[in-house]
């Protein structure tokens, strides 16, 4: 059974048809990279998966269950799907440690000591355990994004969504974030990444999909995707960004 199964997904913003019938399957442990020009609907697509965006037509199955089924508690669903945003979205009024422990304590009812222990080990894994008691504004962009990843991982999610995680970073900070993501991918995390980091895609993606105009135009394993893009629009896009 696929981890995520999207079929015939449609979404409109008013008259604007952002998602025009997307069908996609993501297996457990698969790393999917989604690329495409801005406005192609790629962010909207992954944000539908944890229902941060609502859609009007189609179905999304997560772990075999329709995410709109009445028996699905939206908060429990989201607890199992981590998301990392372009703008980090750390809570500026909380320390790094509290950013990471908030959801486990409040949503899962983990006790504080246990949550902090897990948080510190995750912060160590992303390389910032020595900053645990600082506030987000005292960290660099790359560090903030790594905290955001740790914050998502603290919920022990089955899937991680990345919504352009490196687009807001200074160039010299991109790699520190990508390295964390690569480690995650190698450890078998199921990941959907909207990103233009083609080096990342080559190295760890199982599949790359190219979206344009709200639809999936082309998809292939990374080698094939980069060597032999079939569609004209894909070729034009790759020429722009490589």
């Amino acid at each position, binding site marked *: 059974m696929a981890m995520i199964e999207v079929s015939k997904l449609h979404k409109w913003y008013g008259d604007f048809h952002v998602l025009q019938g997307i069908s996609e399957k993501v297996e457990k442990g698969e790393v999917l990279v989604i690329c495409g020009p801005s406005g192609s609907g790629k962010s909207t697509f992954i944000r539908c998966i944890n229902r941060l965006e609502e859609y009007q037509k189609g179905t999304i199955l997560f772990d075999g269950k329709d995410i709109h089924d009445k028996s699905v508690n939206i*908060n429990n669903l*989201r607890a199992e799907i981590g998301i990392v*945003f372009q703008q980090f979205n750390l*809570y500026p009024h909380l320390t790094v440690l509290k950013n990471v422990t908030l959801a486990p304590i409040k949503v899962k009812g983990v006790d504080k000591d246990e949550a902090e222990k897990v948080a510190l080990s995750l912060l160590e894994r992303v390389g910032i355990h020595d900053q645990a008691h600082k506030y987000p*504004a005292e960290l660099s962009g790359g560090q903030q994004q790594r905290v955001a990843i740790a914050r998502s991982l603290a919920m022990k999610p089955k899937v991680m969504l990345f919504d352009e995680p490196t687009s807001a970073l200074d160039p010299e900070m991109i790699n520190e974030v990508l390295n964390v993501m690569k480690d995650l991918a190698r450890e078998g995390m199921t990941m959907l990444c909207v990103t233009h980091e083609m080096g990342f895609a080559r190295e760890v993606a199982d599949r790359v999909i190219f979206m344009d105009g709200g639809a999936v135009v082309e998809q292939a394993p990374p080698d094939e995707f980069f060597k032999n893009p079939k569609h004209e629009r894909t070729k034009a896009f790759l020429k722009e960004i490589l």
Partner: protein
Amino acid sequence: MRFDPVIKNFDYFLWGAFPEGPLGGLAMTILLAAVSIFLAFWVGLVFGLMRNSKNRIVRYVAMVYIEVVRGTPLLLLIFWFYFLAPVIVGYSVPELQTTVVALVVFTGAYIAEIVRAGILALPKGQMEAARGSGLSHIQAMRFVILPQSLRNMIPSFVNQFVSLTKDTSLASTIGVLELTRCAEQVSNRTLTAPMEIYLTILVMYFLICYVLTSYSRKLEKQLSRYQARDR
């Protein structure tokens, strides 16, 4: 200048006839303001949250309340409650309670607008990050949105609280023995020094408001550590 009526009645300005008689004067003004501020904050918070609700009826109720109150002079609101309250509850309501209700209803509407705007002013990503990690709407509000936005609202709150403190003087019109009413009494009795008397209470009003604004400046500084850089 003839300040001897002021000096002779200074304790009356401070706390009325207390402890032999009822509390009044500056003490009553401060009590009135403090109780009203406390209640208005909670009323405003609730209606401000309702104003942002996804439920149309809830939102509409809050909107009507805010619009009606904002279009009504406070003095009329006080009169209105003064005459209406006994009809509703069936027995006479003391002026003090009437005034508190009017001040709370009035200020609550303004606080509600501040709360609504303050919540909308936070980056959308904060709510998304909170909900995205599995927090419920209420938890997200409680732990992520309100702690940040309430801090940003402090200057606007203080503004409103200073207004409220000065507005307590309107209670004198229905006979509450607060600072203005006490001054009126003394002035009417002595007849010789209205200017000096009213100058004295003006300074008193200024002092309470000044204490309020200075305290808020200190509070803002203390609470803004996390914004020290980058924002």
